[in-house]
């Protein structure tokens, strides 16, 4: 297990007292936590605990009733949705949100939208810099295709691809924006063991080599416990625990609300286990 370095790291994201209500339902109840720069932060909790809702707040898709969110010390509460990406927060979606008719490559290139400039007029007239930029995006997309092993399907429309591959495309798309923070919503859902190993490796790579901070929502305990430096636990919209994986795993509240007794037979909970590195391809 990795050493936890929370204390020494600078705070990248700070969630302060966020409350979200839908009609009578309180989806998030005054949730606060910090995510330090550079690590992997797990966010877990039972179904309907408010994890995705929190992500939606971070990407400004949901409005929160109170509280504030600071990113690199600045509040993002008043930013419009489309500014979030260029601020450096990228994400994937729990139920996929792909541009169905476009190819994998084009999906990834759209990911880099906020890192490109050419506007309507310059595009219409096909100025030189537009072509240069396009070439740059293309090269970047190729790198990411290679990084995520999507080279074979680059020209296929995403709607034809199996779920697991689409999830990878989404990951690549989020990376294309050169984010500082990536929000991953259940990236391991629907993956088998081997694929999971791949994913774990990719996440590590992204975190270590690209220096991207990761906020990870996941029900796969093997992944979460194996990869996170720090874990936040939500239940019924409220934060019930926070700490290192070891602390979380032995926290009785978390066990009662979420993990279940580790010893109980027939439960799917697997002990945190080191996942073998599998993916050898280095990022460019």
């Amino acid at each position, binding site marked *: 297990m990795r050493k936890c370095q929370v204390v020494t790291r600078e705070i990248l994201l700070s969630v302060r007292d966020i409350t979200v209500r839908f009609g009578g339902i309180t989806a998030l109840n005054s949730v606060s936590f910090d995510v330090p720069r550079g690590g992997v932060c797990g966010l877990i909790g039972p179904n309907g605990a408010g994890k995705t809702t929190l992500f939606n707040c971070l990407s400004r898709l949901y409005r929160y009733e109170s509280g504030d969110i600071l990113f690199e010390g600045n509040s993002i509460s008043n930013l419009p949705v489309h500014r979030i990406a260029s601020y450096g927060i990228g994400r994937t979606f729990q139920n996929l949100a792909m541009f169905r008719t476009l190819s994998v490559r084009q999906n990834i290139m759209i990911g880099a939208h906020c890192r490109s400039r050419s506007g309507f007029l310059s595009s219409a007239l096909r100025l030189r810099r537009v072509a240069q930029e396009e070439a740059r995006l293309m090269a970047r997309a190729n790198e990411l295709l290679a990084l995520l092993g999507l080279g074979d399907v680059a020209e296929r429309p995403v709607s034809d*691809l199996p779920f697991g591959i689409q999830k990878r495309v989404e990951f690549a798309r989020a990376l294309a924006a050169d984010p500082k923070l990536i929000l991953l919503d259940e990236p391991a859902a629907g993956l*088998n063991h*081997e694929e999971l190993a791949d994913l774990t490796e990719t996440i590590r790579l992204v975190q270590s080599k690209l220096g991207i901070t990761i906020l990870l929502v996941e029900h796969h305990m093997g992944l979460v416990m194996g990869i996170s430096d720090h874990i936040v636990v939500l239940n019924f919209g409220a934060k019930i625990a926070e700490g290192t994986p070891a602390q979380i795993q032995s926290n009785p509240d978390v066990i009662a609300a979420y*993990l279940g007794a580790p010893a109980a037979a027939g439960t799917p909970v*697997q002990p945190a286990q080191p996942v073998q590195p599998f993916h050898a391809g280095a990022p460019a």
Partner: protein
Amino acid sequence: MSKLLEIRKLDAYYGSTQVLFGLDLELDQGKITAILGANGAGKTSTLRALCQVVRTRGEIRIDGKSIIGRSTEDVVRMGVAHVPDGRGTFTALSVEENLKIGAYSRNDKAEVARDIEKTYQRFPRLKERRAQQAGTLSGGEQQMLAISRALMLHPRLLLLDEPSFGVAPLMVAEIFGILRRINLEDRVSMLLVEQNATLALDFADHAYLLETGRVVASGESKIISGDEAVRRSYLGN
């Protein structure tokens, strides 16, 4: 023991792309069979072929009756319920309407009402949300709804496409407990696609391993879980 389901030489296509190649599979009445395989191996397609949602060739028999060429609706009315991948929620309808729809092909109103109550006991979260638009449920909540909706049909054969998908650990245990009980008490047969192979092999009597649309191994779960390749790719130990 009678064969509830027999699949012989099944091919399946999306448009002109073939995704299943001469698949053979069978399932005994009251048993549970698991299908394992990598992303894109054709697990979902197999379940879809069973419901005649994709174009198929070959033979599929339920209770000895061939269903190739029948409409999905007719297959469902033979007692086949499907928990589809992606959950298939009627997003604009309320939770309760989703449950009612699950019982659409049944005629026993009073019994349906009781079953809805039963569902609410199993999943109190759904009861809290009964009037809420189902599309606003969280991913895991929608998965509970999808399973409950399929059970509303009182099926004889339940097709489960990754029922643990997006479900929190405790709830996975809960759901598999429920499924086990239904299997034992109502003798509902199940065809289970599940990425959590440990869980699946533990739960099922038999298992099939698919690779690019072909069966590469099959047999009793215990035997399959001993297979070296399976252990490496699916069990990780």
